């Protein structure tokens, strides 16, 4: 039983390494890290980006002018009523802000990395709406696997031609960022 499990694990690891490694071209820092939905995921990604040695500016309410000087845009998706309430904004305002930020990134040719790192508990109608928006612009996607059990991000990544990397743990996003930024 244990042996079989190890073999499966090994195969999975190999497959993961083979598929993930060449797919991720290096993206350049500094990154602008922002939130789409104001959940704590953005702050977690900032901590992990620091750990990964990815130079960044962090602004959960960043607007288009915050892109000046940025060479990549990381949008961390996750809707939190508490977070939106604390920021004093509603979902529509958040959607509009994120959309104009993404449009500006596209206009400037800045690559977009979509991240969803808080798993299944951070799925839901509002989060999914924001995900559909961000995925329209994203070239790279990093998602905690339990938030993709229905294949939601897999399907969107295929639709928009983005490179998807699934991680098992939120903390694994540090390694994913390290790979992506070639650190």
């Amino acid at each position, binding site marked *: 039983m244990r042996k079989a499990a190890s073999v499966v694990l090994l195969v999975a690891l190999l497959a993961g390494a083979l598929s993930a490694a060449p797919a991720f071209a290096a993206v350049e820092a500094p990154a602008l890290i922002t939130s789409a939905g104001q959940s*704590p995921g953005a*702050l*977690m990604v900032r*901590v*992990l980006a620091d750990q990964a040695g990815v130079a960044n500016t962090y602004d959960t309410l960043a607007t288009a002018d915050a892109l000046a000087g940025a060479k990549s845009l990381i949008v961390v998706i996750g809707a*939190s009523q*508490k*977070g939106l*309430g*604390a920021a004093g904004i509603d979902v529509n305002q958040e959607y509009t802000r994120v959309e104009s930020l993404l449009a500006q990134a596209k206009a400037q040719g800045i690559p977009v990395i979509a991240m969803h790192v*808080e*798993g299944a*508990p*951070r799925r839901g109608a509002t989060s999914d709406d924001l995900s559909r928006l961000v995925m329209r612009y994203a070239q790279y996607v990093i998602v905690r696997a*339990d938030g993709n059990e229905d294949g939601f991000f897999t399907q969107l990544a295929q639709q928009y031609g983005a490179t998807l990397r699934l991680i*098992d*743990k*939120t*903390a*694994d996003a540090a390694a994913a960022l390290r790979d992506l930024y070639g650190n």
Partner: protein
Amino acid sequence: MAKRNTIALIALGVMVLCMAVGASAMPALHDVRPGYGVTAIGWLSDYHPPLKGTPGDTRVYYLDSGKPGATVYVQGGTHGNEPAGIIAATILVERAIPTAGRLIVVPYGNNANIDYNDQYRLDVPPYFTIEVEGGVPRTFRYGSRRTNPAYEAQPDPEVYVTLDGGVHDGAEIRNLNRVHPGKPDGTLTEQIAYAINRLLIEEKVDVAIDLHEAGVGDRLENVLVAHQRAFMAGVYAVLNLSAQGLHFTLEPSRPEFRGLSHREWGDHTPALAFLTETGNPGQTSEYENPDIVNDPKNPLHERVGRQLALIRAVLDATAQLGLPPMTYEGVPTYADLVRDGLGPWLNAPTAQP
């Protein structure tokens, strides 16, 4: 006629008084077997003497390393039907050996709900047992969310309004986690909250953690709520837990929702305040005859393991962010509890520490 009414009223008044004070002279005592880490045992009433001799009094365990460090408060049993926090707190009392700072543990935060059956779940017995070494069963009570109404002098109001203007259903006046920071002359439940608030202030508590459970699949399952001042520590803690393979969802304390521990402890005391929840089959409406100890998907030992891992991760996080350390040895890790179950980690009648 008027006279008879007066006499009836006086009799009723005496009855209510007896219910409030007399009928319940002593607090419930529990099977807690302190280990060598415990340096003192007190009562919650030490911080609010009117609680003495009421069902709202409860044991306070002090584990002082004698070395400098942070003072940490861990509370189980805010809600008597959420056993993982009660057992996690009990394990700290029985097994933790502090090596820096000081740990204060209250396993039964609201001791006045532990003997109450609110009929919310008729299919969960009011006791559960855990077999410890030698096959000896240890028995723990399974109570209710709210204080036993027999212990309150007044019936529930129509609506309960907290000190800060929060509006709740009237019965919530008996929910300890809606009445923080309490009132010195309030209901029994409000006085319990007040005494806890005094404890946090008088003991100069740096970090306070309130242990809860929610239904399996509930949006609160495996959530860590952090007060604004504690939020960065919450981020570090959740990432640390994630690296161990334990998913927790972080949420900030809601400013508009008053009376909750993470909110009011953080606002009214210097402590960094946290609240956590694990998934209890006994609070899951879809389950029939749930087994709160041996449920195959969410066994008690796994939930206790999550809670103990979370406490450790919060203390690592606060130390990482510059607070003095509070460390201890002897407490099982999540992996220890998944491997061994609870039995070997609770003191047996004849156990040598």
